[in-house]
């Protein structure tokens, strides 16, 4: 698709405007998308994890009070299979670890933390990733608490995937939009191009006495009217031809 340079000049600013508009849309949409996905996923993960922690806490009461701790370990091992959950640990009311899933050992950061705190905590463990930890008290805290660590990289990955999909869509729309804009500009520029060509030919005809090309003069649209107007003005400007008919010779 070839675009006339004069016309491109004419539409350079609108084209730049389209680029700018799409850029603003892409950036703002992505930003909103990141913020929304981050917020919603984080809330969802935290909510789910808190629900799981509550479930484990409820199920743990009987085990802690009446049964062997291997049953408790078996319980938390099953929940560890859920995507996003990286570690689980259960402490008793004295802060002693009754069951956990850490290998090769309980990280120092967790050993140093307050096990009674069941709020949301962000942790960066040495040699590992970042985690969001939620907790739930067992028997209102008098029997200890359950803590679940979620891998933040899973949330980050989800955000990247969501933003990636969004950007893919916007980029596709942008590309299609640009192609469509160029095609539409071409369409809009074609009569102007014809008119320009006609004006040049008219000037040459007037100067060299050649017959005036008449194809454009037969059109009913604005380009035809402008062509006829140009011819009229050329005749008005030339007193010798002022009385002549404005109708063109057959070409």
């Amino acid at each position, binding site marked *: 698709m070839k675009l006339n340079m004069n016309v491109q000049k004419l539409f350079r600013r609108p084209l730049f405007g389209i680029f700018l508009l799409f850029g603003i849309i892409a950036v703002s949409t992505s930003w909103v998308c990141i913020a929304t996905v981050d917020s919603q996923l984080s809330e969802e993960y935290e909510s789910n994890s808190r629900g799981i922690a509550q479930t484990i806490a409820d199920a743990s009461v009987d085990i802690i009070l009446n*049964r062997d701790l291997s049953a408790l370990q078996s319980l938390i091992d099953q929940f560890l299979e859920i995507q996003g959950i990286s570690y689980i640990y259960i402490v008793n009311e004295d802060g002693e670890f009754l069951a956990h899933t850490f290998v090769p050992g309980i990280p120092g950061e967790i050993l140093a933390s307050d096990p009674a705190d069941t709020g949301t905590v962000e942790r960066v463990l040495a040699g590992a990733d970042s985690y969001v930890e939620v907790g739930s008290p067992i028997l209102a805290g008098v029997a200890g608490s359950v803590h679940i660590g979620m891998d933040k990289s899973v949330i980050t990955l989800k955000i990247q995937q969501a933003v990636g999909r969004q950007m893919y869509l916007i980029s596709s729309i942008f590309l299609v939009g640009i192609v469509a804009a160029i095609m539409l500009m071409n369409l809009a520029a074609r009569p102007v191009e014809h008119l320009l060509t006609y004006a040049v030919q008219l000037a040459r005809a007037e100067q060299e006495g050649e017959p005036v090309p008449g194809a454009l003069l037969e059109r009913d649209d604005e380009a035809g009217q402008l062509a006829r107007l140009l011819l009229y003005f050329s005749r008005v400007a030339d007193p010798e031809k002022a009385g002549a008919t404005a109708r063109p010779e057959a070409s």
Partner: protein
Amino acid sequence: MWQSTMPLTFGTLAAFPLLEIHAQFSSMRALTRRKFLRTSILGGLAAPWLGRGAAFAQDETAGSPAGFHEGVSADEILLGTSAAFSGPSRGLGIELYRGAQACFTRVNEQGGVGGRRIALRLYDDGYQPVPSVQNTMELLLRDRVFALFGYVGTPTVTRVLPILKKFQEENVYMFFPFTGAQPQREPPYGEFAFNLRASYREETAGLVENFLRIGRRRIAVFYQADAYGRSGWAGVREALGARGEQIVGEATYTRGAAYGRGMGEQVEILRNSSPDAVICIGAYGACAAFLRDAIDLGLEVPIANLSFVGSENLLQLITDSVDDSERYTRYLVNSQVVPSYEDESIPVVREYAELMDRYRPEVPEPLRQPDYVPFDRSFVSLEGFVNAKMLVEILGRMGDSPSRARLEQAVFTVRDYDLGIGEMVSFSEQRRQGMQRLYYTVVDQGRFVPLDDWRARFG
């Protein structure tokens, strides 16, 4: 009779052990067998092994396999096993099976129990809980076995126990699993299993007591990060707590770790606690790796293992991989739940040795591991033999018409029964563990021998 392993697939089964957990799983709690089959078949549609799902349905409509009722036919009693026949802990399942098979082969040659030969249907779970659950469902729903026998491992058995409760109206019992964990010894699942061996609680208490007696008070624990490890850890904690002590350090490893895995991090963690002794609760691959790395990194303290470890497999890994194996094994002490297989003054050991030599039992071909060389004798195969001998005695007590409904009562008739092991065996409603005796062994000249004097060895 054998059956190759069935791969795990449908998620329905993975949720089974959660039956007791929370109301959100209450729909699973209400899962009937027919519903399960329907789900299984639907799950099977998405899997490449559709035939399996179809087989489930056929069995359900057809009832028990031809001629069988509750795993018993006119000439056969069918038992079901899910155990580790592959993976880093395969030696445990293989040796346990071999010992049991030596006993069953002799019984079958002599006409079986009440004229019925004993057959085992085997599944491989690779010492992984979820396949074990699925295998158990196969055994109960498709194979309709008479009872479960010879299961291996705590993480597997603890996940299977809720299934037994689910099928309690059908009187399905598990006999003599190769684990000393508590869940199959206490409510709510203790009534569905019978144990012969001493528990981990007893094993760890025995080790703690002996270490404390010789002045080794700072005890650390190296354990498998699962129910088995936790069971042993809890045993050590309880035994130490009863004596006013506590665990000074702990390190874990992931189940399935092979001998090639480095355990340097774990050794460092424990060394920082300056222990006088380390009690390991693991399988042979990881425990051998820990022993190797501990000695290499200078943690030269007694390193104890529980009976589950697979003593001969552990020793073989060490002796095959290091030049001066004695330097490593001099710190090793393993507790056992059966006597030394070299002590032929014990009747059951004599019988075991004779039958192992005569039959040289092997795992059936589809489950056989070409690169695994079985041991002529081992503590694990001796335990398998003793388990089988006890089960044969129980089956015999049901006379000519064995039935699941009368199985529990038949077990309770075993009172002060002389199994030939030097310890009388009894069962009752309150006593579902037949034996309590422990044995301690150390390595001397490349073989396990009884440890008589702890102070002389480790004092």
